[in-house]
């Protein structure tokens, strides 16, 4: 590694990315793959809105419409929002805590490839006999009756992608617990690190129920099981419980990192310390706990009985308290600050009213009697798009602008960024605000069309026009990215000029070993403290310069994942094709074989020597 750096060819670069265990490169891959799925999910959303733009439309058939809504929801949650957030966690969190990488770089790579192959597997359903069509919740009474292989693709694809997420979550937990730089106590961790920590803990506890549920579904559909079949003594409600025990924490897995991103943005661009830091931490942990105690509010109309409904209604309303604390803390962070309205700050300012609106409709639905009216109507669609688009997607777009210079050493155009924001923001409210009223007027969700005499024409048309605005916003963002990448102007260190946390203190482009010497953290917003005290370097060091131990790259993660990918095809055609069982065996043999290779082969990594670090090239 200490040889002279030279420009790599395309093949070498590709090989580098396929085998990399560097958290920064894995972050780029998460961002790219998640971005691709975001566009695919967005196209599906556009198809939905074109179909619903006018009454009695036959742009897509009813069956295809069901496939599109299912894949839109599944893609956006599992393959777009979560991986993109994982990308930012990977890129930023180790730098924020002063670590040289995550705790298990090999597992980090494995997690990414599992997500990608799971996502590809799920989307292959479009070309192999039809996509899943039972909604993203895939309730067992629907999904067991679904003909074709759509649901099988859903169950197997999510099982693979879910394993990747689980591995990623554990990795982040161990990293944050064990690899903080000296002086970085828990109560000095930046909020994005804190929310990553709590979201990872939620992944740790929430994904096992999903895994169990999906295994039951796989067994029921492909291997003759009867877990959800009431005629054979099973119970279809069990799927709903297992799904929502996972599904509710899942939305907090998405929104907590979004809260973290906005907390960073508010402090950075108000040029003030985050107001009420310790209450923010407390609120984050509390939301994490309460997130597990409320899942049955998705099932009020199932018939759980008034006692259960009342308990879950009260628990749900309790979540408004810590969330409200956060909103007030953000407002008080801006209050009296020296505000700079950059693109990320614009997103953050737009986020507060949007998310509060989504939260308020959430409290409305938490009242079980009212939920009987709202259930399965467009009011619900409006609510969860307000929290997920108004919270998570705005955070993702803000973070793309905020962290682009950190990840790629280039600044995205502020001008185009603001155009993206306004198109997206106006489009978002145009699309979803009116859907509240469509719901109150009685329009059920997941219908492929409606009649001209039902009085929903105009509002649906307005909603579709809003969706077009959002699409324009995203297209401007893509253009912005292309222009920035082609121009390739180095942004340099601390590009926003007011960076507060460690990640902005690192020289650009970030060396592959991150920190030449591990920094000493002297307080919350440690980089800000150093700058205030006139430290030109921006860091105080906790150790003398010495050799750095680094892990070796490895192709094994991708091979291991590919085995599971093959085995999934075998499971899919089990009982239908003769080659199904041999293919399962072959796939699992590849996976287990690569695990064996990984276990038996000693891989101690390598050292970057002190002498190489001291010369100009900094060990490259």
């Amino acid at each position, binding site marked *: 590694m200490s040889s002279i750096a030279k420009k790599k060819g395309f093949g070498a670069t590709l090989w580098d990315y396929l085998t990399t265990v560097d958290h920064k490169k894995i972050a780029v891959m998460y961002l790219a793959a998640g971005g691709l799925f975001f566009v695919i999910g967005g196209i599906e959303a556009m198809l939905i809105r074109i179909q619903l733009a006018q009454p009695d439309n036959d742009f897509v058939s009813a069956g295809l419409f069901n496939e599109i809504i299912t894949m839109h929801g599944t893609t956006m949650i599992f393959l777009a929002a979560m991986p993109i957030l994982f990308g930012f966690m990977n890129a930023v969190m180790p730098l924020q805590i002063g670590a040289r990488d995550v705790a298990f770089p090999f597992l980090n790579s494995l997690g990414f490839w599992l997500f990608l192959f799971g996502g590809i597997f799920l989307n292959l359903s479009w070309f192999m006999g039809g996509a899943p069509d039972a909604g993203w919740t895939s309730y067992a009474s629907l999904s067991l009756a679904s003909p074709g292989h759509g649901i099988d693709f859903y169950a197997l694809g999510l099982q693979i992608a879910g394993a990747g997420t689980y591995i990623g979550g554990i990795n982040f937990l161990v990293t944050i617990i064990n690899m903080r730089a000296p002086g970085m106590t828990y109560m000095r961790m930046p909020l994005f690190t804190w929310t990553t920590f709590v979201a990872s803990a939620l992944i740790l506890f929430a994904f096992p129920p999903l895994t169990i549920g999906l295994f039951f579904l796989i067994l029921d559909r492909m291997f003759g099981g009867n877990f959800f079949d009431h005629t054979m003594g099973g119970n279809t*409600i069990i799927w709903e419980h297992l799904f929502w025990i996972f599904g509710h924490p899942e939305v907090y897995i998405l929104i907590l990192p979004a809260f973290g991103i906005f907390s960073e943005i508010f402090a950075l661009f108000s040029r003030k310390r985050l107001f009420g830091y310790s209450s923010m931490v407390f609120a984050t942990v509390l939301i994490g706990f309460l997130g597990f105690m409320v899942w*049955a509010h998705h099932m009020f109309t199932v018939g759980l009985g008034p006692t259960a409904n009342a308990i879950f209604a009260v628990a749900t309303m309790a979540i408004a308290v810590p969330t409200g604390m956060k909103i007030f803390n953000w407002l008080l962070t801006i209050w009296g600050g020296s505000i700079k309205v950059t693109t990320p700050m614009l997103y953050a300012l737009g986020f507060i009213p949007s998310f509060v609106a989504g939260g308020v409709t959430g409290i409305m639905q938490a009242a079980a009697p009212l939920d009987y009216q709202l259930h399965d109507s467009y009011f619900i669609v409006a609510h969860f798009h307000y929290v997920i688009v108004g919270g998570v997607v705005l955070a993702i777009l803000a973070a793309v602008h905020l962290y682009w210079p950190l990840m790629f050493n280039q600044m995205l155009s502020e001008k185009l960024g603001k155009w993206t924001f306004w198109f997206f923001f106006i489009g978002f409210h145009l699309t979803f605000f009116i859907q509240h009223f469509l719901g109150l007027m009685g329009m059920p969700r997941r219908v492929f069309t409606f009649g001209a005499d039902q009085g929903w024409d105009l509002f649906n048309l307005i909603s579709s026009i809003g969706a077009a605005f959002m699409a324009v916003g995203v297209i401007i963002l893509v253009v912005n990215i292309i222009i920035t990448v082609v121009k390739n102007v180095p942004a340099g260190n601390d590009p926003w000029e007011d960076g507060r946390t460690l990640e902005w203190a690192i020289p650009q482009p970030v060396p592959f070993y991150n920190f030449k010497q591990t920094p000493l953290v002297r307080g919350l917003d440690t980089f800000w403290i150093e700058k205030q005290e006139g430290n030109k370097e921006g860091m105080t060091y906790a150790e003398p310069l010495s050799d750095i*131990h680094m892990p070796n790259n490895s192709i094994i993660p991708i091979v291991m994942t590919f085995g599971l990918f093959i085995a999934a095809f075998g499971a899919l055609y089990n009982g239908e094709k003769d080659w199904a069982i041999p293919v399962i065996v072959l796939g699992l043999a590849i996976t287990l074989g690569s695990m064996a290779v990984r276990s038996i082969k000693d891989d101690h990594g390598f050292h970057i020597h002190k002498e190489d670090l001291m010369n100009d090239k900094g060990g490259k």
Partner: protein
Amino acid sequence: MSHDAQVYVRSQTEFDYIKQKRKKDMRNQVTTFGIMIFLTLISFTAVAAGFSVYLIVPVILLLAAIQVVLQLYYFMHMSEKNHQVVAFFLYSAVLLAFTFILTFLTIIWWG
């Protein structure tokens, strides 16, 4: 891990201290082991003696819970220092699992 790491040699006092501590740990583990065997014997006896099911089931569950705690604290070292994070996650998981089981029992199977 850098190459110039120093090798550390224990002093006599530290050596004595660690020896004493290990002796104490060993005694604790043997005692715990004894208690656990005793608890298991109670469970088996309760079943063999043919008491009412409504007595046996809660008693066995209670003894099982005690055994889990002893196992975690004395054999898996949770009683030692710097295990707060582990303990926190473990108790969180116990709390969540308890909620799920309680809910499944009350609103799926009994209700």
